[in-house]
């Protein structure tokens, strides 16, 4: 195992966060805080409790997921796309690092940033609404699993994209709508039956449901199903990354 190689990639990616602190940390914390002010304090105070939880508190897990998904994808996709765009990828491809080491470096750094960001957003949420975590172990597990899974997804996106537009299109046109429609701001039980069924095809529902359960003990779908779906998506991403390196897709011609 090339530990120095992994450490170098990891440090390099983390250094980018330090250089772009405003964009990496302050900006997502700011936008999430605005959600809490608008939906939690202002509008939320006029909305009745959902499953015994005040609306402001109810949206905390969903908003956390929204940030973690978006940031994991954005960090990991940029991390691998930029060397491809600038041409510095030659060094990575000519270095004695394996697929596993490259992925640990890039995905590990992206997931770390998301997890740290999640912690900061959680602390920020506490300033606006009451947050209770009934199952902290499960909460942490979902947080880490989601961060890793979507960082892997971001890595795949960064390899697939061959221009900046493609890099932006997936988070904007697919991930954000899926997260908004996946129960970030409501329980899917509040939807008409037809839409409840349709919503179950949205994989983000399972992430948010499991995550919300770890906070308040209420879930739209069973905990087991949430775990299976999250784990399933994780293994799907691992499979795609393995295929990318095996075939050299868009990396090694």
């Amino acid at each position, binding site marked *: 195992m*090339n530990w120095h190689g992994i450490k*170098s990639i990891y440090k390099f990616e983390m*250094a980018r966060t330090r250089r772009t602190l405003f964009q990496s940390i302050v900006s997502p914390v700011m936008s999430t805080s605005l959600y809490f002010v608008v939906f939690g304090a202002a509008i939320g105070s006029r909305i009745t409790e959902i499953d015994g939880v005040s609306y402001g508190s109810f949206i905390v897990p969903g908003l956390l997921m929204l940030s973690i998904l978006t940031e994991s994808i954005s960090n990991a996709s940029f991390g691998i796309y930029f060397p491809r765009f600038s*041409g*510095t990828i*030659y060094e990575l491809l*000519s270095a*004695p690092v394996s697929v596993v080491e490259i992925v640990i470096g890039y995905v590990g750094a992206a997931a770390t940033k998301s997890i740290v960001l999640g912690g900061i957003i959680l602390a920020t949420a506490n300033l606006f609404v009451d947050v209770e975590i009934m199952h902290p172990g499960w909460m942490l597990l979902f947080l880490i699993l989601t961060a890793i899974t979507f960082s892997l997804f971001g890595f795949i996106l960064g390899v697939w994209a061959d221009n900046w537009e493609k890099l932006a299109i997936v988070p904007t046109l697919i991930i954000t709508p899926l997260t908004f429609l996946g129960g970030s701001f409501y329980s899917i039980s509040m939807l008409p039956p037809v839409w409840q069924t349709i919503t179950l095809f949205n994989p983000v529902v399972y992430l948010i449901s499991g995550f919300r359960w770890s906070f308040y003990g209420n879930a739209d779908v069973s905990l087991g199903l949430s775990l299976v779906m999250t784990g399933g998506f994780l293994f799907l991403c691992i499979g795609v990354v393995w295929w990318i390196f095996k075939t*050299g897709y868009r990396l*090694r011609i």
Partner: protein
Amino acid sequence: MSGAANIISVSGLGKTYDDGFEALSNVNLDINAGEIFALLGPNGAGKTTLINIICGIVNSTVGRVTVAGFDTVSEFRQTRSLIGLVPQELTTETFESVWDTIAFSRGLFGKAPNPGHLEKTLKSLSLWDKKDSVIMSLSGGMKRRVLIAKALAHEPQILFLDEPTAGVDVELRQDMWDIVRGLSDSGVTVILTTHYIEEAEQMADRIGVINHGEIILVQDKKSLMRELGKKQLILELDEPLDAVPTALASYDLEIRAGGNEIIYNYDTQAENTGITTLLSDLREARIYFRDVKTTQSSLEEIFVGLVKRIK
């Protein structure tokens, strides 16, 4: 190892891209440890593809490459850790400092941090005072040096320089040559691709010529120059001649410059160059000259001749 002196061995190597373009065809090449090997060829000849396959950036379609006896595919960790690559394009990071980028390169190649080595490398490339500078603030020449520093950060035994002096000014080119000679003196095997023949002529121990994806010649530079290099004796005449006199017809002579010059082509390797008898025969034919000079064909002329011959 495939041979005691070989550090790189390429056998039966071929590369056909997805669009059907055959970049390399049955390339066989051995690089000796410690030598400076220049790979010459026109644009699109396959030089970069060959380097990229050896370094692991491009997959070959057929054939095998070994570095220090290790297979570049199945034993890539061993082979890649021995190689440093300076790419043709100025592909540096943008926002990182010089120090951070070379520390990154060293780590990426599996080496433990060694600030002493990095300092030595930066000093040898006149980059020490730029170590904290952000790369994008550097000039093109400085960026080229940064690329060399990155390639040397992990103390490679083999250094690939892909068109190292493309687009650099004369002063920097001279510096580059000095750096390469210094590396060679320290035991590093250097493989450089270039289409500046002058570069190969100045620096290389051996020369390989590649064209249309095929190696058409690999030879010691000196013997190549000797074998293929023509030498000419140029005699500037007192009075112009219309044609070569019949008495001198047995010599390989040309009349040039409106009859004011006689050119004699001769073989430097021949037992008898014929110069003495030619001069004596000229005197007998009452042809007098006021100046004499000799020229030798450059590697560039040899190269053009070779490529034409293959066509």
